[in-house]
């Protein structure tokens, strides 16, 4: 029997693993290395979203994945001229425009 890994986070399927047409649910976690996308919304609480936006992670901005670390380590991102590292867990709460 073949087991198909499906991870469910907050009831949302991860687009990289589930090939659905629910592109509105695309999150930063699934954005492949080298690709860019526009940020649609941040699903984090108030104080954290202030910090995110002070570092450039805010709706409307374009984000690019420069690389991501082995063993589930953080992602290295660029937004404009700012470079950041962000854990995948947090990247999951950044939704991207289709």
């Amino acid at each position, binding site marked *: 029997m073949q087991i198909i890994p499906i991870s469910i986070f907050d009831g949302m399927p991860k687009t990289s693993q589930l090939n659905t047409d629910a592109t509105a649910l695309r999150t930063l976690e699934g954005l492949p290395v080298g690709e860019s996308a526009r940020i649609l919304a941040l699903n984090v609480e108030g104080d954290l979203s202030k910090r995110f936006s002070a570092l*450039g992670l805010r709706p409307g901005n374009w984000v690019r994945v420069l690389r991501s670390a082995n063993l589930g380590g953080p992602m*290295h991102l660029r937004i404009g001229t700012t470079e950041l590292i962000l854990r995948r867990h947090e990247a999951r709460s950044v939704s991207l425009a289709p």
Partner: protein
Amino acid sequence: MKRVALLGMPNTGKSTLFNRLTGAHSKVGNWPGLTVELLSAKLLVGDQMVQLVDLPGIYDMHGFSDDEKVVTTFLETQTTDLLVVLLNTSQLDRQLNFVHQVVQQNIPVLLVMNMVDEAQKLGIHVDAKGLVEQLGVPVCLLSAKYGQGMEQLLPAMRKVLSATSPRPSFTVDANQVEKAFGQCISVPSQASHALTESLDRILLHPWFGLPIFFAVMLLVFQGVFAIGKPLQDATAWVLTEGRTVLLEPLMATWPTVLQGLLLDGLYNGLSTVASFVPLIVLFFVFMGIVEDTGYLSRAAYLMDALMSRFGLDGRSFVMLLMGFGCNVPALMGTRVIRSKGLRYLTMLVIPFSLCSARMQVFVFFIAALFTASQAPWVLLSLYLMSLLMAMLTSVLFKNRYVNNDAFILEMPPYRFPTLRQIVLRGWQEVHHYLHRASRFIVIGVLLVWVLTNFPVGVHAGSIDSWAGQMGQFMAPVLSPLGISAELTIALIFGFVAKEIVIGSLAVIYAQEGQMLVDTITHHLNWIQAYSFMLFVLIYTPCVSTIATIRNETKSLWFTTLSVGWPLCVAWCVSFIFYETAMYFV
């Protein structure tokens, strides 16, 4: 005296500008209503003396983090005549909201666009005049690191400070700020640091990144030794000569007790400690270079996956590394961590970092009992042990102190530290180190002398002296670790500060320099010495560390835990090592 406060987001070069303005003449002080100490200095602006205060770097004026509360409390309780707001010129887009929040404060503002050197390299152009017109606040473009444009800063500050009428009520809304920056700043669409990109391809490589990082750290420690050891020997030689050539003839006619107190107590103790200053300077300089280049953020990136398995994160690892210099600033540095659980866990593991004070003890014992070719490996084993103990503690306590903080960190471009930065930093660190340590050391070595030379008539440091009695009292606990009565006394004093350990041995054996080394070699074998080093490595670093933990957590229970737990671990590890090694050898 008028007061000027320096404000900005983290990584905008605030401390560089502060140092550039004040040189090395700053002091750390307490402020009413604030739980943390702030750096301040007097500065001559035009013809008036002002007080310049360095506020913590924050991301938001309305946030709720500790640092943000410090800033808002400071601005509410202290009259501030001018806010100098630092911005990173090459990343203005994300700082607009902050600028808007700052100009809304009812305090005169001067915008300083720092790091113009980097912005120019990226092809970013700033129309300062246009900004001044549209925002109604003065603007300076400069590079605090290279000094470019610095000449406009003091006159601009003077102009605001000497303005007789209050600032014209100039209200700008967020859209105006955005419009002003949009019109006056042009950023090329493909702006990136080419050198940083190519370096990151190698240094953040998925497989080679970590090995390179460990190689770099090994190189730092090797470098400190290769350069530092000869310097240390030279200093020790000068100090010993000073005693025999100058002080002994000078004091020949003085009462014996006074001679003993000053020469065997104070001078021997202090000079033994002083001979380690070159090593410490070098360590801080090397670590400073690693930090200033921006490599530490890369270390956080590389280590985060591993650290998360121990319940920590990349920042905790960087703080652990900083702890290799001194645990106290590392503990204070954990303020950037917002999750209480993660912050406490990090504070629990930092005291295991092998700090420069403990390094003194190890260098001394290693030099005495191991060959030159063994020495670096013995020291490396202690560094690994230090990390191992930190990770073990973290695993055991991670379910009690749970991390619920987001991990997001800025990755600055690689920068070359200037010679000025390196020298200034080395000087400041040593200054603070000596300032912190000198009182402890003087009191400590004097106390050791008194305890080893009294009651009157005993042979100095013998079993009959007060210290000897203390050592004997502790013997049932420490002799299973191979730790003798003399070393026990040193351990007791080492509880105050590790800087005293070697100094106190100098007093206990009434010898210094090479003579002391020979005595130690004669009295100990390598197993006893290594067991002693393990104990010194793991048990409480110093009273300052305990005080800092108490200060930062305001929790007596946590402070007790952070003293008691390492003490138990130290005993167990030394016991296991000593008994096992004695069985096989």
